[in-house]
């Protein structure tokens, strides 16, 4: 998977036609094989753009910065990224007319060790669902990809309760409350995060396991039905916490119980918590 040339051409053309002010893409980080996001404003710089299976970050996150808001932006999105873009559009955070979206038919990206990432092997929506232009041939084929429950949560769910409790206690203990997860998530765009608001902090210590538990649980519930499994948060976490566990757990509960689509696949779909069905499960309630 290498669309470097095509993306450079598209960016150059968009600048030449005066259609965009900024182009959000990837460039090499300059010291190893990995890439970092880049915001290009000067047409001269388009040659810096690359796209390979190392293009792991979800660039939609950069649409919530002041560098891109209220500007005309060109952006590259993979399948998962496009779902978060869809949600951003639905939730009125970006305007479609300000965007030029280059959709990728994503064959999966690799981690630092060169192995295909877990979310890519499980991916149900490899092709961008919103785009002005698509690159590559459709990976999803006839749309027959089936939902795979995340292997990690299956393994954890099988363990005894106490073991899970101990495992997560350690996870929350290792959280340093740096909020990198939040900043890296395209869907965490609130003006002031509720975790930082006075009401929420009132009875929490600043940096305790309990506070981390509260913060991460609240965060994952706010992303329930919205998380697109791009794993930006996990890549950003300095403590390497397995944050995807929380999100995948919620996703599987929602997918299995509410017959909902995955987050952001359907335009104008706001996620499972903002609608209901009369047929929702009721047997867990006395």
């Amino acid at each position, binding site marked *: 998977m290498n669309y470097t040339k095509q993306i450079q051409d598209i960016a150059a053309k968009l600048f030449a036609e005066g259609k965009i002010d900024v182009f959000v893409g990837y460039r090499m980080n300059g010291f190893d094989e990995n890439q970092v996001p880049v915001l290009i404003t000067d047409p001269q710089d388009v040659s810096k753009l690359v796209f390979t299976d190392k293009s792991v970050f979800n660039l939609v996150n950069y649409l919530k910065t002041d560098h891109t808001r209220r500007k005309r932006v060109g952006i590259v999105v993979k399948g998962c990224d496009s779902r978060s873009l869809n949600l951003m559009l639905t939730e009125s955070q970006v305007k479609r007319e300000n965007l030029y979206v280059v959709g990728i038919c994503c064959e999966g990206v690799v981690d630092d060790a060169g192995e295909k990432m877990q979310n890519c092997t499980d991916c149900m929506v490899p092709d961008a669902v919103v785009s002005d232009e698509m690159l590559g041939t459709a990976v999803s084929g006839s749309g027959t990809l089936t939902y795979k429950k995340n292997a990690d949560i299956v393994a954890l769910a099988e363990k005894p*309760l106490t073991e899970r409790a101990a495992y997560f206690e350690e996870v929350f203990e290792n959280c340093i409350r740096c909020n990198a997860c939040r900043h890296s998530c395209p869907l965490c765009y609130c003006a002031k995060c509720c975790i930082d608001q006075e009401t929420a902090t009132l*009875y929490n210590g600043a940096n305790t396991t*309990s506070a981390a538990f509260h913060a991460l649980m609240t965060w994952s519930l706010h992303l329930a039905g919205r998380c697109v499994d791009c794993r930006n948060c996990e890549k950003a976490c300095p403590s390497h916490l397995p944050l995807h566990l929380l999100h995948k*757990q*919620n996703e599987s*509960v929602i997918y299995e119980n509410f017959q909902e689509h995955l987050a952001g696949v359907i335009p104008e779909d706001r996620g499972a*918590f903002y609608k*209901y069905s009369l047929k929702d499960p009721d047997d867990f309630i*006395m």
Partner: protein
Amino acid sequence: MEAEVKDQLVSIEKPELIAPPNWEPVIMGILCNWCSYAGSDLTGTSRIQYPPNIRIIRVPCSSRVDPWFLIKSLQTTADGVLVSGCHPGDCHYISGNYFARRRFLVTKKLLNFVGFHENRIQFSWVSAAEGPKFAKVVNKVTEDIKKLGPLHLYKKENFEKK
């Protein structure tokens, strides 16, 4: 279930946390104003007896219940929580309990996933006429949580209590 409870206590390896002899659980009951709170009032006026472990908070509708309240209760004062609302279709606010129902399921599963026994987070639909049912629900929840013992996860550090 017994075995599981024991497991939980042992693995946390804090001997002083094993239930003291006179320990009584605290259960946070969050009830909607129109059905379940009225139902609990009816339990009272009918003099139906139930265990004294539940502490009742009144909210207008089960949809007012932010999952955050459950998390907060469990990490501060409560050993278990009970949220109760109107039966599906009877919501005073038309559709509130349907929205709430979805959130409850996800929250319950998530809390269970990170190590809380599923019986610590319980839900019920109790109508304003179901005084006896409310007593039955409280009985069951109290019994369940007594079996589980005190809850100490995430409580220790920031919670100094009477």
